[in-house]
Structure formats: structure tokens, C-alpha cells
């Protein structure tokens, strides 16, 4: 019996030829290799060993702070606030954003402390955050996440990542390893310089008398289409006398008591940059004589414990911008947006637990 006398296998009535089967397998194999290879590379399954990804930031926060189920991976400790922004119309000179027309825009916000430990004790030296969402949840929203610092410590995502790793508390002392800190500062002179600037303006007693800054530069687009580089800040208007509070939530308890006794107010100042100013480096300050427009007053009238449906569930992504405000080329901005989104996704699916700051437990 010779091989040729065997009946040929068929598919759909068509006899199969070895040459065509091999050709077909090669074509399908080639297509799948390119198609699935592209998906694996794009999806970060291969080729991510030497690049920073949002996921790597999330892992690093967990490595430094332990599992913080349901909380923001950075600025984990916070409290929700609400109020409004009264625009005086002056901001229209540089931006066509609706928020700068004369009138009132509702605002949701959140005071926070930097760091990924949702139950860390309040420290005066910890950077204070204020996230705001103007006009939430409308279509022309403006979100911003600000700090009470004159400049940001890092100019690049790599710098932030390295600083995060160096900040891990040592098991013995509970403080960052001095050697790791020294090695980090040697590798990142821009941070060493920024720390010097930050050290020159010590923090105020509390949230209520803190000046909060955008730190990154943004472009404001006017009605006529002109683009102005802007850094904004919220400057406290006659801050109330500081309340003496103590304990692990001293800073938060104080601001809870202050808002209970009366609204807190800040002026929104738009500082206009010159083309020669550092527009894409948040570690560098602008000359002090830059013109600033007083665009109106932010008033915070209420404060509440983080819970479902309030500021807890808002991602204060600094690139949720209304028409009339655009991002600059600052290399921190897109990574901030990407990592905030990753943090939001992870915490959204994690079980939630009670936040450290409970407004109802703060005695009058």
C-alpha cells in the first residue's frame, strides 16, 4: 500500500494539500504573533522591565505604606469640603473658561495630607493638599490638586518615584533610612534645590491659613485665542485664629472646628508667567514680581467625613480642565493624570473602610 493510495483528508469537501496547510499555518501564525505580540507589548505584559508605568507607582505606594484598602494611594488621609467660587470676572482677561465669568460656581473639595498611609498622624511638616472640583459634575468642570508648598520637590516622574521609594520608613526607627535619603538627594539635585526653597517658607499652623498652589504651569486661553502661562494659588483671606488641637488628627480637627464656626475663604490668584520663566519645571519658582490677577473668592462652607458620593469618590485629576485652560509641557502632568486614574481604578474595586477623620467625632 503506497501513501498516495490513502484517501486525502478533506475539509468542507475540499481535499487538503500539505503545501496549502503549511502556508495557511504560517499566515495565521504570523498574524497572531504580530497581533497578540502588539497587545502584549502595549498591555505591558512584555517589555516593561525598564519603564515606569502607573501600575509600578501603585505597587510602590503599597510597598511603602502597606495595603490601604479603598483609600487613595497617595494623599490617603483627608476630609471632604464643599462651597462655592465667586468670580469677579477679572480672570476673563486671560481665560475664556466659564468659571471666570462673573458669578458663582459650586465647588466640591478635599483637604488631605501627602502620603499613602490613610491613618498617619498629622504632622505640621507633611505637605497639605487641597483638591477642588469647580462645577462638578458638569461638562465644563475644572479640577485641581494643589499643595501648600512654594514649589514641587520633583521635576520628573522618575524623581517622584525615587523619592517615594526613599521615603519608606525603616522598621527600627519609623523614619526614612538616612542613607537612602542621601543617595536620593545626590541623584536628584533638582529636589535638593527645591527642598531649600520649601524650607524657606515654613508651614502655617493649619489648613485654613495655608496658601495652596497649582505648582505645575497651565496655559490659559483667552476669548481672542491668546495663550498665557499661568500658575494659580489660593491665598487665605483673614484666616480665623488657629484652634488648639492635639492628637493624631490635630490639623484636620482644627479645620473641622473652623468651618463649623464660619466659612473659610481664599482669593484665587492667577500668576502670569513670562516666556523666559520655567514653564515645564515645577521645582523652580517664578520671579516674585510676576503680575497676579485676583480672579475671585473661594468660600468653603461645609465639611464632612469622606463617604460614598462626596469628594471621596472624585479623582482630582489635574487634567480635567474646562475649555479655556490647557496643560503645559510640564512632564509631570500626564503621569499625574495616569497614576491618579490607576489609583482611582484600584481603590474603586477595593473594600472600603472607615476613614481616620470622622467629622462627627470632633468635639465642639
Amino acid at each position: 500500500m503506497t501513501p498516495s493510495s490513502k484517501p486525502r483528508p478533506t475539509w468542507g469537501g475540499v481535499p487538503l494539500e500539505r503545501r496549502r496547510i503549511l502556508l495557511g499555518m504560517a499566515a495565521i501564525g504570523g498574524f497572531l504573533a504580530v497581533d497578540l505580540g502588539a497587545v502584549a507589548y502595549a498591555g505591558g505584559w512584555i517589555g516593561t522591565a525598564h519603564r515606569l508605568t502607573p501600575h509600578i507607582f501603585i505597587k510602590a505606594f503599597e510597598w511603602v505604606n502597606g495595603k490601604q484598602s479603598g483609600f487613595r494611594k497617595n494623599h490617603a488621609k483627608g476630609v471632604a469640603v464643599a462651597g462655592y467660587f465667586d468670580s469677579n470676572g477679572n480672570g476673563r482677561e486671560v481665560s475664556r473658561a466659564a468659571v471666570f465669568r462673573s458669578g458663582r460656581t459650586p465647588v466640591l473639595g478635599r483637604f488631605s495630607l501627602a502620603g499613602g498611609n490613610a491613618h498617619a498622624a498629622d504632622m505640621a511638616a507633611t505637605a497639605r493638599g487641597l483638591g477642588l472640583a469647580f462645577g462638578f459634575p458638569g461638562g465644563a468642570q475644572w479640577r485641581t490638586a494643589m499643595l501648600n508648598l512654594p514649589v514641587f520637590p520633583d521635576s520628573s516622574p522618575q524623581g517622584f518615584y525615587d523619592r517615594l521609594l526613599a521615603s519608606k520608613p525603616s522598621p527600627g526607627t519609623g523614619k526614612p533610612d538616612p542613607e537612602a535619603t542621601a543617595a536620593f538627594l545626590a541623584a536628584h539635585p533638582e529636589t535638593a534645590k527645591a527642598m531649600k526653597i520649601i524650607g524657606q517658607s515654613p508651614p502655617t499652623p493649619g489648613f485654613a491659613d495655608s496658601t495652596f498652589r497649582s505648582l505645575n504651569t497651565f496655559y490659559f486661553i483667552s476669548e481672542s485665542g491668546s495663550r498665557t502661562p499661568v500658575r494659580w494659588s489660593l491665598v487665605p483671606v483673614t484666616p480665623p485664629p488657629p484652634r488648639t488641637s492635639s492628637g493624631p488628627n490635630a490639623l484636620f480637627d482644627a479645620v473641622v472646628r473652623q468651618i463649623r464656626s464660619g466659612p473659610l475663604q481664599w482669593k484665587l490668584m492667577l500668576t502670569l508667567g513670562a516666556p523666559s520663566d520655567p514653564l515645564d519645571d515645577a521645582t523652580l519658582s517664578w520671579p516674585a514680581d510676576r503680575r497676579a490677577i485676583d480672579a475671585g473668592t473661594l468660600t468653603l462652607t461645609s465639611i464632612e467625613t469622606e463617604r460614598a458620593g462626596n469628594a471621596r469618590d472624585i479623582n482630582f485629576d489635574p487634567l480635567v480642565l474646562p475649555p479655556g485652560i490647557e496643560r503645559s509641557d510640564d512632564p509631570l502632568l500626564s503621569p499625574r493624570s495616569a497614576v491618579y486614574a490607576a489609583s482611582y481604578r484600584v481603590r474603586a474595586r477595593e473594600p472600603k473602610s472607615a476613614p481616620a477623620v470622622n467629622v462627627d467625632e470632633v468635639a465642639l
Partner: protein
Amino acid sequence: MSTEIKDTAAAATPSHKFTALSRMFHWLTAILIFAALLIGFTMVNWLAGYTDLRVIHMSVGALILLVVVLRIVNRVRHHPPAWPPTVGRLEGKAVILSERALYALLLAQPLVGWAMVSASGTPVRVFGVLRLPPIAPFNIDVFSVLREAHSILAYLLVAVVAAHVSAVLAHSIVLSDGMLRRMTFHIGRRERSKI
């Protein structure tokens, strides 16, 4: 008898081809879906490119939604040409199932993406100017379900598209049954008339 004018130069007569409109829709969808998937997978792993790619991804998604709705209308109004005789009964069932799965995934994925951004309370803006209304309430639990679904549907799309292309290549190359040519445009010479 049929009064159809047979194209003697091509093996596939007009009745064995999809209509020009259907073919156009098909290849447009193919380009858009490959782009949306690759951009989507890339953007969530690329810090510097995230913001720009997100805008493109959402705009491509909006286009896919529009094209798929038009395609479904077109599919209902135009019956596709008969399969080559090489498609048996069992395989025919698989073909029908995979076609329906593709349409369902192509329709669901942009809607889930749109709803998930809505549920996070973030405005949905496409092509830089067009603002779409929210289609889900602001709710982090709703967001989470939709966000995870968006990833699962993306992987399902990769799998179904890979199976779809592999099956067409197997038919066209191994069986030489002209499966692919039902969907191609003839540009230039038409001498490659194998069945």
C-alpha cells in the same frame, strides 16, 4: 433566470461579494478597532502618552459606536452573500455566533467606555470639542464594574478578532475558497481568479 450581469473577469460574481458599502464599513471598523485596542492598552501603561492617547482613544471609540450603529442598520437591510460551499453546517453555526459576538462587542465596548467615564463624574469630550452627555450616574461602584468590564471586553474583542481573522485566512489559503475575496476591493488588475 437571473438578469444579473456576470463579471466574467472575476471569479466572485457580484452576488458572492458584500456590497461596496458593507465592505467599506468592514474595513473602516477593522482599522478603528485595531487602533482603539492598541491605543487603549498602550495608554494605561505609558505615563507620558496617557493624556493625549486618552483623547484619541475616546474619539476613536465614539467613531466606532457611530459606525457600528450604521453597520447594524446596513446588516439588517442587506443580506450578506452566501458562504463558500466549504462552510459546513457546524462551522456555519460558529460563523453566525462569532458574527453576532463581534457586533455585540463592538456595540457594547464604546458604550461601556462612555458610561464608565460618566460614572466617574468626568466630562466626556471627544475630538477636542464635542461634549457627550453623561449616560451613567456619578457612582464609584458603578464606575468600578464598568471599568473592569471595559478591560474584559477588550480582551474578548482581541480573542474574537483573532479567531475571525484566523478563520478567514484558513479558508482563503488552505482551502482557496475565496472567503476573503468576498470582502476585498479589486484595485487594478483582476487576474487572480482562484476559487
